[in-house]
């Protein structure tokens, strides 16, 4: 009897598990599944404020009216998205500009197709700041010389920009000690005194500010007021095979970006659908800007700085990368 019970329970658990699991599309490799003239495309995104236009555009029908059905997958970061795009697991992906530049310099076949997110261009009012905790003795960028600064990824956009801020403030960037940790751990690390400053983006930035922390430099603005921080990209193979689809995706994304840029309240609303940002922080968020096109001059500047910091052996070919 007991044995039967155990068997039944085990069976029930399995059945329940399969029943309440989300029915994934049975992994068919048919990329252009035309169902009633719509094509489903997979986009790898990160669950942060930056990708709000995608969700908003999907909701507003900017994609569906062009026959595109978006399937958005949240990954932890570029480490999973770039390989996913190159191996055709995703059709498009979202990645910061420096990562794409590094990939390009190593001949990873990525091609940017649309703008992702840009700096607000306003000093001390950007969506990413060099932040310190309440009552910190550090007052400006050059004060981080010899101090520990948290960045989300070493040898990437954060440390390149921090170096530039320090340089502009008359300091020596080679004296800065960078420590790598995820953005979401930075408020705790700052409060606990494990790092002295942090290159931090929203919503972690809002947490720091809500605890009395302040910004000592707007690092992205220091690189370029119109800095293109991230872009949507695809693989060269996909771009060659599906030029029509890429074009439609670009148009729809441009429309979504413009709409998001001019409707901040709707952006705040859509954010609650794919993140769990608490309401108290949601009001405080500094939204980024979403220009329709990437800003080439700012990307060139980022590439120069990257080369200066030794991120690439040779300068990446921007013509191959940019749309």
């Amino acid at each position, binding site marked *: 009897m007991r044995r039967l019970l155990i068997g039944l329970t085990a069976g029930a658990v399995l059945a329940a598990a399969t029943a309440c699991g989300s029915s994934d599309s049975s992994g068919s490799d048919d990329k252009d599944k035309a169902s009633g003239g719509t094509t489903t495309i997979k986009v790898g995104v990160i669950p942060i404020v930056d990708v709000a236009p995608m969700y908003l555009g999907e909701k507003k029908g900017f994609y569906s009216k062009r026959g595109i059905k978006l399937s958005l997958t949240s990954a932890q970061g570029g480490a999973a998205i*770039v390989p996913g795009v190159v191996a055709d697991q995703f059709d498009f992906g979202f990645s910061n500009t420096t*990562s794409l530049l590094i990939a390009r310099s190593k001949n990873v076949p990525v091609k940017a197709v649309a703008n992702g997110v840009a700096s607000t261009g306003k000093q001390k009012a950007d969506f990413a700041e060099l932040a310190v905790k309440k009552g910190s003795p550090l007052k400006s960028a050059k004060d981080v010389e010899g101090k520990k600064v948290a960045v989300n990824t070493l*040898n990437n956009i954060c440390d390149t920009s921090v170096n530039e801020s320090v340089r502009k403030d008359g300091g020596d960037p080679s004296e800065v000690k960078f*420590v*790598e940790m995820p953005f979401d*751990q930075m408020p705790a*690390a700052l409060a606990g005194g*494990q790092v002295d400053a942090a290159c931090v983006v929203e919503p972690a930035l809002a947490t720091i500010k809500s605890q009395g922390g302040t910004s000592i430099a707007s690092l992205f603005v220091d690189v370029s007021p119109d800095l293109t921080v991230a872009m949507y990209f695809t693989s060269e193979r996909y771009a060659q095979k599906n030029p029509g689809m890429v074009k439609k995706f670009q148009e729809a994304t441009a429309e979504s970006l413009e709409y998001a840029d001019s409707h901040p309240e709707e952006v705040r609303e859509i954010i609650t659908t794919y993140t769990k940002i608490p309401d108290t922080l949601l009001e405080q968020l500094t939204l980024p800007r979403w220009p329709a096109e990437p800003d080439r001059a700012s990307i060139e500047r980022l590439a120069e700085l990257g080369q200066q910091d030794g*991120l690439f052996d040779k300068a990446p070919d921007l013509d191959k990368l940019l749309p």
Partner: protein
Amino acid sequence: MRGVEAVLLRLLLVVALPALLVVVWWFASDDSTDVYWPPLRTILTTFPDVWTGERLRGDVLPSLLRLTAGYACAAVAGVALGTVIGSYRRVRAVCEPVLEFLRAVPPPVLVPVIMLFAGIGDTMKIAVIASGCVWPILLNTVEGVRAVDSVMSETARSYGITGPARLRHLVLRSASPQIFAGLRQALSIGIILMVISEMFAASNGLGFTIVQFQRGFAIPDMWTGILLLGLLGFVLSVVFRLVERRALGWYHGRRDASRRSS
């Protein structure tokens, strides 16, 4: 002469399969143009450039030191706790749910929590390694201690062997095959956690280097790192087996003796 042949045969057995696999990999990947699947030829030619003496000193050594420290903490804690929990049924009943609860928490989630208490230095990394390694040791010790032969137990009692002597000669000794099974599993878990702990707030280490290569799209270099991890695990397990043979000599000896006598 027979001895030499036996040694040669053993050597052949050890080398044959890996060699075969390497050959298959070499030819299967040789014309690969995929960024993420470089030919083995490329990986092997990058190996010496990447893992120079300086890098071995600066990255592999710190990793190994942290691994050793974390593993040692876990071994001491696991055996000590396991002996207590295995010996007293009540203690086991109280502790088991909490321990199982903690064990199921994935290390990447645990790292931020440990960071709150242990900062971001080596202490944190050692704590992360120890927190993962302790489970197989603890579990196996509990099982081993519970399974102490009741006849032996009674014998010890009737001879008045109690306290530390009983613990050393009876309990730990008869549980040691299982404890070693746990220690061995903890070793591979330790290497995994060494890598995970170095993904957070690290500035050196083997895991850290692999992640950096991966992020910087230095894919062949990343592969050399993965190979080195495998090699490291292999060397550690050989060392472990030597230690085990010494420590459990009586056990294997008893088996062999009964094999011979039969």
